[in-house]
């Protein structure tokens, strides 16, 4: 793989297409994610955003196209990598429908996130040598840092199965961070969060970008979050690119408004005309 022209580019997708039976889920999509930026994919439901993520993390193989990845020491075509190698290259992701290890505690989930950073082999593990012990303590320390960072102390030892939706979202983010990635793929990080929590999420994403220096590729429907944290936005529709630019530019794009945002009319139109509401008995 030759080095991409622009050394600023972390990930370069070129002419990606994938077809499922009759559905052309992604159609000739190209984009770059630059080092240190927050790059957002938006688009109506079924536009192919999650599919792009799945292509990057090698759950699907593209029908055509390449994804160039420029790690610190390696430049590879992601489409040639085995699925489990993606994490090792420095790409971590979260899932739209949350895929956690349900029967394990939060801490345990985060430790599994440390897998690619494991320092010991099978035989050492079997004997639990002092090296393993030391490595384990280091893994704990890192996991605790992330727990601290995302305010999860309260849930450290709870089983994931019993967590509320919003907390799971955060745990998934924490697990992804545990791999110490260069690029973080976030699939709808704010879905299921309320306004306040969405704001926290925005702060976290900014911290991740600025303090940890991790690039973020994100799919998101909440435009307030998108405008707040994204450097650039790519709008898709029916598998194709509609617009690319700053959040403001994209939000003003007529195609995006038409297919995605809807005409900005007042939500208050939903409101029932005063007086016609069914009466409630006094409590």
């Amino acid at each position: 793989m030759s080095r991409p022209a622009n050394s600023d580019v972390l990930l370069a997708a070129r002419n990606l297409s994938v077809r499922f039976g009759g559905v052309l889920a992604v159609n000739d999509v190209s984009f770059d994610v630059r080092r240190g930026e927050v790059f957002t994919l938006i688009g109506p439901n079924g536009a192919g955003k999650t599919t792009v993520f799945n292509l990057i993390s090698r759950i699907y193989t593209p029908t055509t196209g390449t994804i160039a990845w420029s790690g610190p020491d390696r430049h590879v075509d992601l489409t040639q990598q085995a699925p489990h190698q993606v994490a090792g290259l420095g790409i971590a992701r979260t899932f739209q429908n949350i895929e956690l290890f349900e029967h394990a505690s939060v801490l345990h989930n985060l430790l599994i996130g440390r897998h690619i950073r494991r320092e010991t082999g099978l035989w050492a593990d079997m004997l639990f040598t002092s090296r393993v012990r030391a490595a384990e303590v280091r893994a704990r320390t890192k996991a605790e840092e992330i727990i601290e960072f995302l305010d999860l102390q309260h849930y450290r030892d709870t089983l994931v199965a019993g967590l509320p939706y919003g907390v799971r979202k955060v745990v998934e983010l924490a697990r992804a961070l545990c791999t110490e990635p260069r690029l973080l793929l976030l699939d709808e990080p704010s879905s299921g969060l309320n306004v306040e929590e969405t704001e926290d999420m925005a702060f976290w994403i900014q911290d991740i970008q600025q303090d940890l220096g991790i690039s973020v590729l994100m799919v998101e429907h909440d435009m307030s979050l998108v405008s707040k944290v994204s450097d650039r936005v790519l709008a898709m529709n029916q598998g194709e690119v509609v617009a690319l630019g700053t959040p403001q530019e994209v939000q003003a794009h007529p195609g995006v408004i038409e297919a995605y945002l809807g005409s900005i009319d007042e939500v208050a139109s939903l409101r029932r005309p005063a007086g016609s509401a069914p009466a409630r008995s006094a409590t």
Partner: protein
Amino acid sequence: MSGAAETTMAPAHGKVAQPLLRLQNVESAYGPIKAIRGVSLKVQPGEIAAVLGSNGAGKTTILKTISGILDPRRGSVEFEGADITAHDPAAIVRRGMVHVPEGREVFALLSVRDNLMMGAYTRSDGDAVARDLEVVYGYFPILRERAAQEAGLLSGGQQQMLAISRALMAAPKLILLDEPSLGLSPRLTKEIFEIVVRINRERGTTILLVEQNANMALNAADFGYVLENGRIVMEGGCDVLREKDDIKEFYLGMKDQGVRGERRWKKKKTWR
């Protein structure tokens, strides 16, 4: 949807009716963890009621308790005046209440169409079912397009549309909606709320709504409850709630720029 309208009851506008749904002092727990602690609420026939609350407040738990998925430790649930506490979930659906669950829960290996038909499982009026199928296809044309596809392969948002449509197919008296806008595009979110309001107006279907998008919810609903840590901390007509400072700050995101600055600053919630 006019065809089915005759079969459903008309909203009891204007007069003080017996509540369609009433929870009294309900307490539910997961093992040793109490998720809701003594919740009482009422839903009047023909209204849209909303429950707001932060993560883990227990909103989903309330809905699960109502539809019989979770047996409450204490308290009672009444539907149309009859006690349905801890009844078999299927029996509750047959009474005319249907639940759109959190996380979509579509039948992943059945076709989209079969999913919709399963929504109408409790109905035996074949013609009306066929008409309602057309109606939901009208709401969400993508479902018609994908009618023969396995539902598990739809995108997240498409599955959400399917989950809502499936519940509509039951032509219920009361719909429990758990975060209907989850994962939907802004445009579709708006459309969903429009549909919800329309169903409520046209068919008189009563709706109990749990939603993170408080702005939408408070606009669409007539009455609201605010839930924190498993307790109801505030309730009232939506017009009233919209004006409260706490609601504005914590749920509508309209904050005092002066107090909450650029970087993180968290204000402790205290309920006045």
